[in-house]
């Protein structure tokens, strides 16, 4: 346990000293996962609304696919995104492999089903008469949808947290599509793997502690937003 204690002490040392390498890795993790989560919201909320409120053939099958996608293994995503981004792959001309954008793309794919699935469930949780009432009061379909999303905002924030949690913590996809390149695609998770194999367990533990603290800080901030005006 001395090792853990030393690691935690080292983590505080690195944070307090503002170690440039650790700070860089931390900001990169936060930025890439934050952007991937935001993009997954932009695509996932409309998709979730369609699957949760829409009526069209194949809706249940699609919803089932999205729900099973919540458990999409990051390494599988990493493999297929890698192949797509290869020079010989369909997206090869973009030259994105081993860049931060490749990580954003892979993490977006991982977070999308989480956000869409939870959005669909959140909207279905609402009173089913609400959409009809809103439309009856003369709201346009878009206005009605925005109103419904507002009603479901606490559940939607839970979807944000779940999506962000899934991508900030994954290592398999980022390692494969990013290549763990220093200054470019080395994240808290991939750096932790690297330091562990190198035998620098104290640094690995320090990075883990920083990752946990970062995840907690983001979740706490979102929770405060979520609980604003909530009944106790």
């Amino acid at each position, binding site marked *: 346990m001395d090792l853990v204690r030393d690691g935690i002490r080292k983590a505080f040392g690195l944070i307090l000293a503002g170690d440039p390498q650790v700070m860089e890795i931390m900001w990169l993790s936060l930025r890439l996962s934050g952007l991937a989560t935001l993009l997954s919201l932009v695509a996932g909320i409309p998709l979730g609304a369609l699957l949760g409120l829409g009526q069209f053939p194949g809706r249940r099958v699609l919803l089932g696919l999205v729900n099973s996608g919540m458990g999409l293994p990051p390494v599988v995503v990493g493999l297929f995104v890698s192949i797509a981004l290869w020079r010989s792959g369909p997206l090869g001309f973009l030259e994105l492999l081993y860049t931060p954008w490749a990580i954003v793309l892979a993490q977006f794919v991982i977070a999308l089903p989480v956000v869409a699935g939870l959005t669909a469930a959140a909207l279905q949780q609402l009173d089913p008469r609400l959409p009809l009432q809103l439309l009856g009061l003369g709201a346009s379909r878009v206005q009605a949808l925005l109103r419904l999303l507002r009603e479901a905002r606490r559940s939607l924030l839970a979807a944000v947290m779940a999506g962000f949690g899934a991508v900030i913590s994954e290592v398999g996809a980022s390692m494969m599509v990013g290549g763990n390149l220093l200054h*470019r695609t080395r994240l808290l998770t991939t750096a932790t793997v690297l330091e562990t194999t190198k*035998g620098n367990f104290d640094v690995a533990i320090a990075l883990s502690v920083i990752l946990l603290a970062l995840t907690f800080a983001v979740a706490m901030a979102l929770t405060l937003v979520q609980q604003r005006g909530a009944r106790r």
Partner: protein
Amino acid sequence: MPTARRPAPSLPVALLALLGSLLGCAGEAARGVLLATTTSVHDTGLLDSLLPAFERRCGCEVKSVAVGSGQALALAARGEADVVIAHAPELEERYVAAGELTDRRPLLSNDFVLVGPADDPAGIAGLGLAEAMRRLARGRVPFVSRADSSGTHLVELRLWRAAGARPRGDWYLESGQGMAATLRLASERGAYAITDRATFVTLAPSLALRIVLEGEPDLRNVYHVLRPDPRRHPRVNVEGGRALAGFLVSPEAQGLIAGFGRARFGAPLFRPAH
């Protein structure tokens, strides 16, 4: 009526801010040289001491992806890398013969060593290599194999074959991981393993392992640098790849290789090829 929907604009604003901040680090995704390399030259820190000199000179960036020799060669043969460093001579020759890789040049060498627990429970210290492999195959003491088609793994398989031994059974552990992780596993399990000397020397202070067998001709470990055939792969960065490969075998880089590790370990980790 939708009143006071304050939070709404914050999402696009945050999105734009993030996009902007990310553009800073992705703008550099311009044409660099992609180097697929075996783990040993990467994990020992050798590339970190070689590449900056090249990057300054050509004003470009080298992205080096550390994988086993098997994967590095496969990637380069598909044109997914511009240069490859590997230490799997037979496999390399097959790729060259098939016309998929070209311009194969020796880069550096060191040797493989057989490492095991300090008290040598299988009693193989001082034996010939083939006899030692046969004794290991009796299976009284565990042996950890990379099992990942890396150069080291291919050498290990060749040594079993040459000794007429079959590595099968509970004692034969297949890690499927890199050299460092495999050595750590061997250390924890009190097992034997085959490793390149450079990785072992680098990690030795944190391992409960020692060298039990070394110095046999079959344990020679030669690294080559190769390039994909540009005629087959139009998207390969031919110029950058040629420049990097040329730099690696140049007197300057070879001199850096000859001195690498001397300050930290008292002796160089690699021998330059030229």
